[in-house]
């Protein structure tokens, strides 16, 4: 069994050290059976993209002017600011210094000394992407209701509906948006699909589509949603996505890409070129649902094959990045270079996208493109392994008939134009996959 020790991120004020069981009973307004009766929360039901399609309007009309700050954006920002002014966060993230690291890629660095204070390192199992839900550990049914901002769902039709005070219905497990009390940027929230169903951290089609809906509805290219699988730096095994505002492009989003294939439903799949972490980009498709489902197919395949990964939902849901990674596994095997380890930066979805949250002042002051690159390159699969993973994923998506294109790409890959990390150990992921795929399939 592979394990690493790390300081877990405190996402809720109700999260205790060492994931110890809470025997506190209640009286603190949580989401458990003890408190949920009579609980109310605003409900935002967004336009249903699956039903309305994703056809964008072309014609200039009066509505084509720059829209006002969107409804969902006002709700997220307004409720977040309210919790901020009520002092629910562990620190003021806007007081954390932040800068763009000079260089070609524009990595963003933030000095955040408060995020990891007051927690002891905990052991995390990193060799199992799918683990069953454990109600005795911290999960989002244990957060206080004041940390919840609103309920979010895809509505029945093409209309946005808003109910300022809607009962939380335990029979019909609501999806909720909660604050992350250790934010890494302004507006850092968690989207928890069907919170009362206690789903483990694993991608399913419905939940990813909900996250894509949220990205589309927020209608702001600087509000992205991210996902970390277990083994790729998720610390809580209760299904959740993260999101926040950062009004500049991520280096990952700026990276040039090269098309590998287009699926029958028109989803274009490309591979990023000259980025330290080998990644896939999904975009287009006849509808947002087609796009989302294609990514879900790939993710389900990855998690069934025990391959840790991160997802970034970008450009209002139009672009979805999938980044398989092996950092934690290498860390557990003692293969990550000590200088990189020393920074204690965990390459989860935001770091891999190019937003580096640094814990030590010296790392912040000395932040360079080289350092950022070196850290991220440790997380990347090797060229060989990435090729295998693409093949697996494409088989699941049903575009294995593009084998020829793929071969062409791989040939090109072996002579990367940039300094794509070549030294990753080529065996990463391999043995583990072979060893546990069957076990994971049983869970499925």
């Amino acid at each position: 069994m592979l394990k690493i020790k790390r300081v877990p991120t405190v996402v809720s004020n109700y999260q205790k050290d060492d994931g110890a069981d809470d025997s506190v009973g209640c009286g603190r307004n949580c989401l458990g059976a003890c408190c949920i009766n009579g609980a109310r929360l605003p409900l935002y039901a967004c336009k249903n993209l699956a039903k309305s399609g994703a056809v964008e309007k072309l014609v200039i009309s009066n509505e084509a002017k720059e829209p006002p700050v969107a409804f969902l954006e006002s709700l997220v920002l307004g409720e977040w600011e309210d919790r901020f002014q009520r002092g629910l966060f562990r620190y003021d993230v806007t007081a954390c210094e932040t800068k763009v690291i000079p260089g070609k890629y524009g990595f963003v660095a933030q000095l955040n000394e408060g995020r990891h204070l007051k927690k002891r390192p905990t052991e995390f199992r990193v060799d199992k992407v799918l683990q069953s839900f454990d109600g005795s550990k911290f999960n989002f049914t244990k957060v206080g209701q004041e940390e919840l901002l609103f309920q979010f769902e895809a509505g029945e039709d093409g209309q946005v509906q808003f109910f300022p005070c809607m009962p939380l219905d335990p029979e019909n497990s609501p999806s909720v948006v909660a604050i992350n009390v250790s934010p890494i940027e302004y507006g850092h929230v968690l989207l928890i699909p069907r919170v009362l169903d206690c789903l483990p951290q694993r991608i399913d089609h419905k939940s990813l589509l909900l996250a894509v809906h949220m990205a589309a509805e927020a209608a702001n290219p600087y509000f992205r949603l991210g996902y970390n699988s277990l083994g790729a730096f998720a610390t809580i095994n209760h299904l959740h996505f993260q999101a926040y505002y950062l009004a500049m492009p991520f280096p990952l989003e700026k990276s040039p890409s090269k098309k590998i294939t287009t699926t029958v439903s028109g989803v274009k799949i490309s591979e990023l070129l000259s980025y330290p972490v080998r990644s896939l980009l999904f975009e287009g498709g006849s509808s947002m649902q087609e796009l989302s489902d294609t990514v879900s197919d790939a993710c389900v395949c990855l998690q069934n094959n025990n391959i840790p990964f991160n997802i970034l939902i970008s450009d209002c849901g139009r672009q979805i990045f999938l980044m398989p990674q092996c950092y934690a596994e290498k860390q557990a095997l003692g293969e990550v270079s000590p200088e990189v380890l020393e920074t204690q930066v965990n390459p989860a979805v935001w770091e891999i996208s190019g937003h580096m949250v640094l814990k030590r002042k010296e790392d912040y002051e000395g932040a360079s493109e080289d350092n950022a690159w070196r850290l991220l390159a440790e997380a990347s699969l090797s060229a060989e392994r990435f090729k295998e993973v693409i093949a697996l994923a494409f088989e699941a998506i049903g575009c294995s008939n593009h084998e020829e294109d793929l071969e062409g790409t791989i040939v090109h890959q072996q002579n990367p134009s940039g300094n794509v990390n070549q030294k990753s150990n080529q065996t990463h992921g391999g043995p583990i996959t072979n060893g546990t795929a069957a076990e994971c399939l049983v869970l499925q």
Partner: protein
Amino acid sequence: MSLTKSSEEDSFNGRYTLWITEALEELPHNFTITDPFISGHPIVFASLGFLKMTGYSREEVIGRNGKVFQGPKTNRRSIMEIREAIREERSVMVSLLNYRKSGSPFWMLFHMSPVFGRDDGKVINFVAVQVPISGQEHRKLGVMSSDHSELVFGSCRREVCFGSFVHQNRASPVECDDEQGLEDWEHCEASESEKLKAVEAVNNVLSILTRYSELSGRLVCGKRYCLRGVDCLSSSLVISLGRIKQSFVLTNPCLPDMPIIYASDAFLTLTGYKRQEVLGQNCRFLSGVDTDSSVLYEIKECILKGQSCTVQILNYSNRKDKSSFWNLLHISPVRNASGKTAYFVGVQVEASCRNTESKELRPETRQLSVVGAVRVAVRSSLMVTC
């Protein structure tokens, strides 16, 4: 609430005098000029060539944001590049798929460049030239086979324009006969001569703008001669703030008497003042004889402590009836990228207008959402890649 088309043109004519339009119309190029300091970053001038190319009338274009010409097949990455160039106040040249009024898409070379105020380094306008791509040298990315030219031209109408076409203003742009053709098009590279043409066009527009700004005495230039002053907001921050449609002001606590440095359109509507009447003023001009001085004191205390506060205060408008109104005012300090308090934001809600409609956000939430949106905009406005 929003500015009328004529006022958009007024702001342009004010800077360059009335003859500017005539002079620009003599240029053969396809171009637009936008004003980032008007909410929505609208087009304030469009050349005849541009109108002819896109099929729109001038009235349909003035006051619009350039993004209305984009469509489902427009490359998202190119859009991001343009967005970032605006944010970083620099020029950009990129191939772009745009759409005409008829809905038909076409490839053009988009070359945008900022125009700076000579004395304050502030961005005054952006000039965007569009050169139709003739299709002579375009290539499809991702095709590796040797007979790629056939593949590319196979799906698209071939434009025959060999020979010297450097000064040919009406080169037919690359078009596709069917959707599938476009779908396969990853990119359309402009030829060197088209790139030169774009540069030449921008230079011609810039030199006319410079010449006419001399007439009005408010000089502009294509290069930044001085750093932006401390009291001068970046155009990217102003564009972000312009998206917020509610009444608010930003004040600068580092300047003497904490003057207003930004006022939203909704603030001007609420108070009845013009922008130039409020910029540089301390907010106390909204007070009057019956304004409770203890509330003013409370505000002052909060500002000194660097805290946020919500108060109810009687304010006096400059609207036609000179009416006073109860202002539910929220004030918060706003930090910049270095984590230091750079501004205070004041968000006004007219108490009588408090919306109790149950399907809307609570007025308090809407008010705080303005604070949030301002924080996001300010925090990233200084983090510009250079």
